[in-house]
């Protein structure tokens, strides 16, 4: 079996360890004999390179980089990503990407910045007097009750539309907006999350869920992945829960 991973804007949307997600997907496939190709999609890349991919990852960006990406993403790549997500191709959008796939972002001052509208959510910044939501987070996935751990660092607050399911319930930390106790969102096989950077290394069960979904969609059959020795992954995971 073979998977092609689309890594959107690795040179612009990779701020703090986002690469960890790609490394983990690659290794966990290789360890199971699934061959992997990473297709780096950036400003100059052709859409045909994106369309044939089996998985999409897009990470965090600083403001300046996000501005550079914004126009190209909305005009060129986002319509293709939307079609792919609608078809059930799995995707992971963290941090700034989670913001870009919503309807819009309303900064503290100035006009609304339109998003790709792939997820039914919007984001707003409550003003520079409101604190940034920063720290280690623990949450419990709504559907499976499995825990996820990570680090969040965001000024904006995210509000989900009524047709969009949250990914997890926050146990410790802030999550989407620090109010409704939810974190992230799931739409079809795509996940959005405020857990920034390397979400997958300490949450290998999410990595495997995404790999299995990608293979199921591609090969149109039920996939059960060979288990791996994840004791170190869980040790790092439990360490955050115990903090």
């Amino acid at each position: 079996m073979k998977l092609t991973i689309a890594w959107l804007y690795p040179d612009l949307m990779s701020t703090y360890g986002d690469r960890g997600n790609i490394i983990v997907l690659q290794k966990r496939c290789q360890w199971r004999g699934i061959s992997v190709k990473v297709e780096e999609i950036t400003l100059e890349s052709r859409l045909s390179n994106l369309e044939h991919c089996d998985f999409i990852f897009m990470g965090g960006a600083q403001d300046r980089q996000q501005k550079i990406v914004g126009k190209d993403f909305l005009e060129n790549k986002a319509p293709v990503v939307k079609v792919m997500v609608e078809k059930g191709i799995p995707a992971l959008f963290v941090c700034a990407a989670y913001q870009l796939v919503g309807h819009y972002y309303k900064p503290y001052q100035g006009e609304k910045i339109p998003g790709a509208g792939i997820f039914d959510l919007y984001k707003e910044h409550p003003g520079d007097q409101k604190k940034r939501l920063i720290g280690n987070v623990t949450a419990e996935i709504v559907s499976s009750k499995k825990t996820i751990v990570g680090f969040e660092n965001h000024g904006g607050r995210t509000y989900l539309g009524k047709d969009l399911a949250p990914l997890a319930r926050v146990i410790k930390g802030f999550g989407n907006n620090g109010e409704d106790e939810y974190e992230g969102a799931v739409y079809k096989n795509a996940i959005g999350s405020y857990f920034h950077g390397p979400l997958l290394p300490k949450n290998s069960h999410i990595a495997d869920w995404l790999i299995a979904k990608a293979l199921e969609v591609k090969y149109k059959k039920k996939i059960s992945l060979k288990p791996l020795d994840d004791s170190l992954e869980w040790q790092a995971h439990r360490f955050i829960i115990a903090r």
Partner: protein
Amino acid sequence: MRLQNVLPIVIGKIVSSASKLFHLGAGATWPGEIALRLSPNIFAEFASQLRKGIILVAGTNGKTTTSLMITQVLEKQGLTVVHNASGANLLNGIVSACIQKAAWSGKLRVDYGVFEVDENSLPQIIFYVNNSHSREPFEAQDRRGNPENDKTGSPIGSGMTRQIVLVLLNLFRDQLDRYGEVDVIAEKWKKALLRLDTGNQTIKPYQLIANADDPLIVHLASSASRAGLEARVTYFGLNDASQFQKKMEHATDSTFCPACGARLIYEGYYYSHIGVWKCEKCKAKRPTLDVSDWDYPLPGLYNRYNTLAAVTTSQALGIKKETIKKALLSFKPAFGRQEELVVNGKRVKLFLSKNPAGFNESLRTVIQLGAKQILFVLNDRIPDGRDVSWIWDVDFEMIPGNISVAVSGDRVYDLALRLKYAGITANICENLENAFDTKETLYVLPTYSAMLDVRKILTGKKIL
């Protein structure tokens, strides 16, 4: 010296002596903190007393080594210097260094202040330095300095004018939860640099010493020295194609033109986004280098930059090449920065590594030095940044299979996990004290607070 400023200094000196006497270990910041609460403007007062000038060293990586090099050169020249050698580089740390050096009368009788400055604190420090212009320089008050006896042998040290030199080393992603984004810092610097006051006749125009190979630094330096402002920029950088990396590292920040946003074209990368760059859209490009070569006293490409920055600064202060050469020949590294410790006959070398760009450089250097055993220590305390995500941007994959690797620190499992995905099985030392049982020279790459922990275990002292 105004009387209301003497008391805070005296109190600060008492706190400083007491913390040393009782080993409280807080001597680097508390004296300054207390003095600042009593006299918020005290740094402007100190700055106005420096006879010949003030040198501020800023940037993500290399501040401590560069400022120590400059200090040692100036001292070799026979000049007196106040320097925040402990690495405490916020306003309170810089004021503490001044207090320790000041006489009990409150007077700071030294030629130069050489201070490494925290990225976020640079605008505040510049503000106080600007404020110090409105005061008479110390030398003009009592004519202590006689130009005839000036040992620098250059017109610059002529006594009546003071020099203000800003050394801009580099800007990399570092502790996003604490510093914010690189661009946010760059924006703050830009505003602060534009406020540089050159109207006062008792100081020379500001001088900027800038890294030509960092596009963002060049953007900042050139906008601060554009027409209408008097500040001059002198550029240092490397002209050595043999040092180019085969491909660009993942951990880069400024690979798009800071002026116009177009993708930069590189003739070659030295490390991270540091290299020989140009923008084909707005025609910005790496400036001509004023200083690009020296006999480097320390291994590591990043130390070439630190050396070039120190040499360029020293030359701008009128120090002769021969003196700089002599001073750097006997240069001893700063604590934790390639510092070598011998404990029970075992050699341990410390390479402070606190962000992806610096970590990759340290790693490349220890591999080139032939390391057989490496220990990584990762903490997530406030001085390290609470967020350890950045370890996934470090290229641990470059470690050859014959090197044995151990990990420790608060986030030992995160580190072991990162290494697992780089194909390396690390020896997990939950207790740092057990990590030094080694036959070979042990190369230790710690984050900041981890470096202090290691020094505490090996030398009994965290800092100096």
